[in-house]
């Protein structure tokens, strides 16, 4: 158990709010939808799209219960918009949106990024989703992790898209010098390990 896990374990919470954070298109909503589905909720939490900033508001799934031999945990899962330092409406045009729709989407995306940043104060723990199929040196990951650390919020780093041949979870591990969980939110690989880690950081 990591130092952060032990710190969090002291509180022995049975209701925990977990934020899903990361850069755009890392697979946060795909992960949220998988957790939602595996918790028995019939509805997906959000729409998954190759267009960046599809998620532009924080969406919460309450009463997702996971358990092991030590007990149960009542989770609130919060899917957050991707955090970015720039929003370029022309990127949306490249995905077929009109200029007017692209600018409107960009405006909504800027508000979404602010909401994601502000959500950092409302979490008991966080899953930082990193796209393992891309070089993980994006400064956003460090900004998010640094802010979570400063708030003493336990962190789980999920190296997503491990089903892709170009994925390199070891590079993610090497970069963050920490235990990471290789997952594929798309096909479900690594989800049991992720749930185990959630229970662990929650003191179960």
């Amino acid at each position, binding site marked *: 158990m990591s130092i952060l896990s032990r710190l969090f374990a002291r509180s022995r919470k049975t209701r925990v709010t977990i934020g899903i954070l990361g850069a755009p298109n890392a697979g946060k909503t795909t992960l949220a939808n998988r957790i939602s589905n595996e918790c028995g909720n019939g509805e997906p939490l959000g729409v998954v799209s190759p267009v960046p900033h599809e998620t532009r508001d924080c969406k919460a799934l309450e009463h997702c219960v996971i358990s092991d031999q030590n007990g149960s945990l009542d989770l609130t899962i919060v899917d957050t918009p991707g*955090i*970015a*330092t*720039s*929003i*370029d*409406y022309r990127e949306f045009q490249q995905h077929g949106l009109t200029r007017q729709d692209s*600018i409107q989407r*960009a*405006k909504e995306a*800027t*508000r979404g*990024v*602010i909401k994601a*940043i*502000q959500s*950092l104060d409302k979490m008991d723990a966080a899953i930082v989703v990193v796209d393992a199929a891309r070089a993980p*040196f994006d*400064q956003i990951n*460090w*900004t998010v*992790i*640094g*802010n979570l*650390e*400063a708030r*003493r919020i336990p*962190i789980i*780093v999920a190296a997503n898209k491990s089903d892709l041949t170009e994925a390199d979870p070891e590079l993610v591990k090497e970069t*963050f*010098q*920490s235990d990471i969980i290789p997952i594929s939110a798309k096909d479900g690989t690594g989800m049991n390990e992720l749930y185990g880690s959630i229970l662990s950081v929650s003191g179960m």
Partner: protein
Amino acid sequence: MDLRINFVTENTTRKMNSTQKCDFIISKLKTDCVLVFEGGLNPEEEAALIEEAMTQIDHQEFLGYKILNPTPLRMNGLFSRKNVRMTVIAPYNYEHLSIALV
């Protein structure tokens, strides 16, 4: 467009609070400056800068920025960011300008 590089010493930023630092950075970015900060920004300042930048993106002239803290960071060990020695921030609008850790 002419691109300028400004080296910002710790002496310049020492007396600035987070809001003043964000205002300073964004005003410089809007005049096509690349900023190299001695001492770097801490994660909270980076988050504040993101928030402020998002409120100022106008979808015409200012679209945000690119940022890099080149010092390798370690997740193990709280407050390890004290090892960071500089932060590079560039206007996003320079499409052919890339800042990267290689």
